[in-house]
């Protein structure tokens, strides 16, 4: 047999009516009383009333949802102070907050760890507040409780994931720091300091390319713009010489190492010969996704435009290792890179195949 939990078809909850019969003098009478009865028996919100004028403020009413949530019967609940819901891991500070609010007749909302009759616990979003009669006399305390255990679990998981990715990010940066040290130490020992520095700069560019991705590692994709900015940040400490434009687009993580090294080489070249070699040149970087017909796979197109650098000649565009690396990397990843030595400055267009995920605003 299927357990019937549907509110409408549920067996009639007569606890509100009995409460009214026993409390004929209060205001839950007439039309209000009928409303109270129906609302209390139908709501899935666990509700109880306690009597602050009786010794130890006992519960005088608890609806069906309250009994279902806590696992107690009405007889076990009525007449007791609601502290029986507390247990070993209930936060005493929050209990104190509840006590203070009750004493001051203030509304309070807290999340408490409460316990059922069977000993199992649940996170209770507890709302407490005073109910007064017409003359302003305190009549009851109203308490509503909502089981927010799932919300709590999700929140805890999210916090844990965040802490974990931060730790991971920290460790990765330290690891790159140590790798850099090893390369330098080895280079010095072998009398190849310059070579070691070139290797190190490339490794560090790679590290920076992955850096912004760790905070959201769980997404499994990487925001292209952030990765490019991170790689190029050290080449423009004041943030004046390199300009970025492009929408938020998430790409395959494995595109990042290629892009990281490519932009490192372009920047190194620009510092030696191009727009970043004088005081006034600028670099503009624009990216745009080129979506394929299936909507998922596509290419990321990035245009690197230098302006205001020293006069451009074909030869000044470093035909050495930097360009070789980019061409090779792009060929191996079935992408493409083209160089255009415009009179105003070098223009490089890179297209890399990747899945694309565009964020729309």
């Amino acid at each position, binding site marked *: 047999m299927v357990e019937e939990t549907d509110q409408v078809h549920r067996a009639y909850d007569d606890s509100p009516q009995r409460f009214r019969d026993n409390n004929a003098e209060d205001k839950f009478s007439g039309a209000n009383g009928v409303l109270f009865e129906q609302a209390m028996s139908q709501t899935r919100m666990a509700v109880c009333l306690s009597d602050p004028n009786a010794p130890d403020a006992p519960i005088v009413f608890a609806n069906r949802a309250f009994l279902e949530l806590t696992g107690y019967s009405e007889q076990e609940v009525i007449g007791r102070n609601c502290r029986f819901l507390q247990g070993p891991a209930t936060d005493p500070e929050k209990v104190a907050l509840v006590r203070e609010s009750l004493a001051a007749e203030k509304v309070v909302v807290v999340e408490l760890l409460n316990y059922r009759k069977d000993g199992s616990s649940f996170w209770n979003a507890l709302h407490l507040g005073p109910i007064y009669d017409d003359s302003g006399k305190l009549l009851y305390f109203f308490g509503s409780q909502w089981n927010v255990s799932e919300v709590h679990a999700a929140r805890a998981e999210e916090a844990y994931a965040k802490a974990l990715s*931060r730790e991971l*990010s*920290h460790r990765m*940066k*330290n690891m*790159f*720091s*140590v*790798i*850099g*040290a*090893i390369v*330098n*130490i080895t280079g*010095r020992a072998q009398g190849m300091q310059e070579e070691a*520095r070139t290797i*190190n*700069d490339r490794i*560090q560019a790679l*590290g920076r390319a992955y850096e912004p991705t760790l905070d959201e590692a769980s997404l499994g994709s990487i925001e292209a713009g952030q990765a490019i900015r991170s790689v190029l940040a050290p080449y423009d400490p004041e943030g004046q010489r390199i300009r970025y434009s492009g929408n938020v687009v998430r790409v395959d993580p494995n595109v990042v190492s290629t892009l990281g090294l490519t932009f490192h080489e372009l920047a190194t070249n620009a510092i030696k010969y191009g727009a970043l070699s004088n005081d006034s040149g600028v670099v503009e970087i624009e990216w745009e996704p080129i979506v394929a017909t299936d909507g998922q796979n596509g290419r990321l197109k990035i245009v690197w435009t230098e302006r205001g650098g020293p006069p451009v000649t074909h030869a000044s565009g470093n035909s050495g290792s930097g360009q070789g690396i980019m061409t090779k990397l792009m060929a191996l990843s079935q992408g493409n890179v083209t160089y255009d030595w415009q009179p105003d400055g070098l223009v490089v267009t890179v297209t890399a195949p990747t899945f694309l995920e565009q964020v729309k605003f």
Partner: protein
Amino acid sequence: MKQSQCADMMVLLLDDEALVLWDLEEEMRDAGMETITASSVDRALALIAHRVPDVAILDVNLGAGVTCEPVADRLSELGVPFVLHSGDLNRSGEVIRRFDVPLLPKPTPAYRLVEAVRALR
């Protein structure tokens, strides 16, 4: 030993990572600077008590929740300029905000740290 305009400069290096200390030590020496190294707060404070450095590079997080703060405080009292070096800008936030000094994120190549130290003088 190479001589340079920094020959009279003594740098205190504090980092809990031996390889990073090694690299920095060699880079500073190649730049003509004298170095003293420490991998803990206690050791760094002892070195400072023995001889006050001209400048310092302080790794912020020294493991197990320990930070370079006591060393940074001591250097501040003595008027010794220093830079902070950290791989975890989130967790280092408190320390970084307390001291208005240059911050170099890890990883920063050793030669850039040399430049940063030179800029302190």
